[in-house]
């Protein structure tokens, strides 16, 4: 049977239309190349819109002491020194330019009194640094980039008569495979979600900008799109993933009702007096204060309650411990059977504050839960638990070019690239990460195409890719994709979640392997016309690879650092700090190997106080004082 295939030829294919993808496309088009942008949903709906806080850039508009070096230090500290130093450096240096550029494209940030871009404080940032627009900064960024693409298309229309002559957006299209010839990228294969028709893209360079992997987990703040497509496509194309064990969990995401499951409850709810209790009504956080924090956190309710009115003479309530501590505590309570039936605990702000005060201090929280779920936080407790929020791990790339290591022609930027954030991402660093490395990926891909020229796609590669798309309808295994997705989420949630142990991780790896066999038997009902079951069958494939990579990396890393907590290895290890876990795919399974982390060069090493580095580095490293 021959299926008619739609063919397109472009210089560069950008997969993903969030902040990073659009920024890459703009750069490539400005370099004079023809670009196709692939968008899994409608244009402008990318998960970037969910970013609320802001975009971190050391413009120094609010505090002029800020500069790239301070920002660099904060980023490295946040990532517990597992970051690729060069990415953190480039990010800190180039972020201000990326923000200013947005303004020239029509973005309207909130302003300071002098009329400059206003910047706000955020956790982990030494100075007010986050450019923002209320609490919808991500929307502003995506809309600005979207409108920049339109502006370029208008210019092209004036010149060539065709708006899509140099940039074309392929909305609601899924890429299922990256094609290679002679070891280099030659194109990609996929299908239109609207009608299931297959599409072949011939392109010598591909930029992956597909975002996160949250949908691999049961409770996540990510949308359905966060299925790790770019991670999986890269793995299958022969590229590596770095440090996939690092996932950022927010301690208080809603777990119930389902309409708001995964939506974050901001830390200020706890700051304003929100109290965590288990199903026995016990305020359990007092049991979980680690020794190092004993002098800063109250060990009894009376003192904790007094802190809200008198912060100078009382220790803080333990609800305000760092994110990972709170997550760990909630997790332990649930595992001990003191959680709600939905796997959470109660967070209650209604007992301490009056309805008027809550509405005044936490307006958007109140509004959001009331409108989306009918939960009135002035009257009742919220059911919360740790929520998968962001993946620090991702495609291993060359920092300066965002080129995927090992696959000429493949680039990755944004959340799907690894290295930048180390073991833990600072709030606000994500939006500028998209812009800085989106631009670099676009620029480098353009340079690559100009020197490497075109490639051919072989008929056999196309046929293989096409067979894979047809498979879910022709198979007879009878597995339901929705059910398998739920099972995968149960495995990751219970065994690869926020607190990990070797036995559970080993168990997870076995279960994931079993699931892989069943996923091969997925059968889809209906036809190819906009069929979500059909779509999910491909997403599942990707999520399975992510889960495997995460579980296998996590079982190897015998320490706790940032977004990776091992109950059996609760401390940071200076040895493990020097190691990246590298995942690769051999066609049947993910293999993880170790690779030394690049050493800080002397001029960056010298930006830190040696005493601070003692916590992270071995005496030998400290003695050496960075590379030359």
């Amino acid at each position, binding site marked *: 049977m021959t299926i008619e295939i739609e063919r397109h030829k472009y210089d560069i294919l950008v997969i993903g239309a969030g902040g990073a993808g659009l920024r890459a496309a703009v750069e490539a088009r400005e370099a004079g190349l023809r670009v196709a942008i692939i968008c899994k*949903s*409608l*244009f*402008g*709906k990318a*998960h970037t819109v*969910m970013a609320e806080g802001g975009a971190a850039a050391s*413009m120094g508009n609010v505090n002029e002491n800020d500069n790239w070096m301070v920002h660099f230090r904060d980023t490295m500290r946040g990532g517990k020194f597992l970051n690729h130093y060069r990415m953190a450096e480039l990010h800190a240096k180039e972020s201000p*330019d990326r923000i*200013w*550029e947005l*303004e*020239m*494209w*029509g973005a*309207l940030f*909130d*302003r300071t009194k*002098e*009329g400059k871009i206003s910047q706000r404080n955020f956790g982990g940032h030494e100075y007010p640094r986050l450019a923002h*627009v*209320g609490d*919808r900064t991500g*929307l*502003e960024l995506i*809309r600005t980039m979207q*409108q*920049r693409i*339109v*502006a370029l298309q*208008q210019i092209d229309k004036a010149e060539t008569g065709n*708006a899509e002559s140099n940039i074309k957006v392929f*909305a609601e299209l899924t890429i299922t495979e990256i094609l290679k010839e002679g070891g280099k990228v030659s194109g990609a294969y996929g299908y239109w979600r*609207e009608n299931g028709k297959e599409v072949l893209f011939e392109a010598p360079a591909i930029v992956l900008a597909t975002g996160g992997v949250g949908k691999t987990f049961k409770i996540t703040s990510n*949308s359905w*799109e966060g299925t790790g497509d770019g991670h999986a496509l890269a793995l299958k194309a022969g590229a590596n993933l770095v440090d996939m064990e690092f996932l950022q969990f927010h301690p208080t995401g809603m777990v*119930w*009702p*389902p*309409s*708001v499951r995964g939506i974050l409850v901001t830390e200020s709810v706890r700051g304003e007096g929100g109290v965590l209790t288990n199903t026995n009504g016990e305020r359990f956080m007092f049991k979980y204060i680690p020794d190092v924090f004993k002098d800063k956190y109250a060990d009894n309710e009376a003192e904790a309650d007094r802190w809200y009115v008198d912060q100078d003479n009382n220790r803080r309530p333990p609800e305000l411990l760092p994110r990972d501590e709170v997550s760990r505590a909630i997790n332990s309570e649930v595992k001990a059977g003191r959680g709600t039936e939905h796997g959470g605990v109660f967070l209650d702000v209604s007992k301490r504050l009056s309805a008027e005060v809550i509405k005044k201090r936490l307006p958007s929280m109140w509004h*959001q839960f009331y*409108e*989306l*779920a*009918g*939960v009135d936080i002035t009257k009742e407790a919220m059911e919360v638990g740790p929520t998968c929020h962001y993946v620090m791990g991702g495609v291993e790339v060359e920092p300066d070019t965002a080129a995927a290591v090992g696959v000429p022609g493949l680039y990755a930027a944004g959340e799907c690239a690894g290295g930048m954030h180390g073991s833990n991402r600072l709030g606000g660093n994500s939006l500028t990460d998209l812009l800085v490395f989106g631009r670099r990926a676009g620029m480098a891909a353009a340079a690559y195409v100009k020197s490497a020229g075109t490639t051919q796609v072989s008929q056999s590669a196309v046929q293989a890719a096409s067979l894979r798309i047809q498979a879910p309808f022709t198979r007879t295994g009878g597995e*339901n*994709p*929705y*059910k398998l997705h739920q099972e995968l989420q149960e495995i990751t949630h219970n065994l690869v979640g926020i607190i990990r142990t070797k036995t559970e991780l080993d168990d997870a790896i076995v279960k994931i392997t079993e699931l892989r066999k069943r996923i091969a038997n997925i059968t*889809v*009902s*209906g036809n190819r*016309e*906009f*069929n*979500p*079951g*059909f779509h999910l069958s491909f997403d599942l494939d990707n999520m399975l690879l992510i889960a495997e990579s995460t579980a296998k990396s996590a079982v190897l890393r015998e320490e706790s650092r940032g977004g990776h907590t091992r109950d059996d290895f609760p401390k940071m290890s200076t040895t493990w700090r020097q190691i990246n876990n590298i995942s690769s795919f051999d066609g049947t399974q993910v293999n993880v190997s170790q690779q030394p982390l690049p050493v800080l060069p002397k001029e960056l090493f010298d930006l830190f106080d040696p005493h601070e580095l003692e916590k992270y580095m071995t005496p030998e490293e400290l003695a050496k004082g960075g590379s030359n």
Partner: protein
Amino acid sequence: MARKLNLRIWRGNKESGALQNVIVEANEGEVVLDVIHRVQAEQLNDLAVRWNCKAGKCGSCSMEINGKPRLACMTQVSSFPEGEEITITPLRAFPVIKDLVTDVSFNYKKAMEIPSFQPPVGMKPGEPRMAQVDVERSQEFRKCIECFLCQDTCHVIRDHEENKSSFAGPRFFIRIAELDMHPLDILRNRKKKAQEEHGLGMCNITKCCTEVCPEHIRITDNAIIPMKERVVDEKYDPLRWLGSKIRKREGIL
């Protein structure tokens, strides 16, 4: 806590379609999108629906629920009385693709027709200085999540397919207003274009766009009417026209 819901979901495609009765369980606190997902996972695996963030921030799950244009993720099941049938259809102003998914490409075409932001010639990144009060009006319009519910409910195109070529719709009137009120934009013919090319005059300010906006943008009062007044300044006000001629002659402008 769970209750049984009687849904009537429109299923079909370009050629044909009909409302299909579905009985599904709903839990306390769920929104219509949750229920649709349950139908999808348990009964109609291939039911087509668009959605992304499920938090009212991306504007993907636009549909019509009991005849009203709404975001399914922002419509609580509890807002419907026990036992009442809930009718769910695709947007009725746009061509249907399948089930609850419509072809909204009209909006992207219109976006292409609005001239983009144009900063002053020679201005460099980092140079702009704008006061907060000067950006606030445009910021309101930039809250738009492009759910296109305003476009769907606007009778100018909902009820008159033939107007689609000459009418940009409320979403793009706020875009034009945003740019015309942008402190840095230098294009001065936006008002004229709005009236002559984008069909601002077709709007009879019946305010349905404002009523359906999930972001509570005051589309009519803050964008469309001010733009209509700005158009009057340029095109229909003889005194201002005379004034501008005189000022031009005296070299004031």
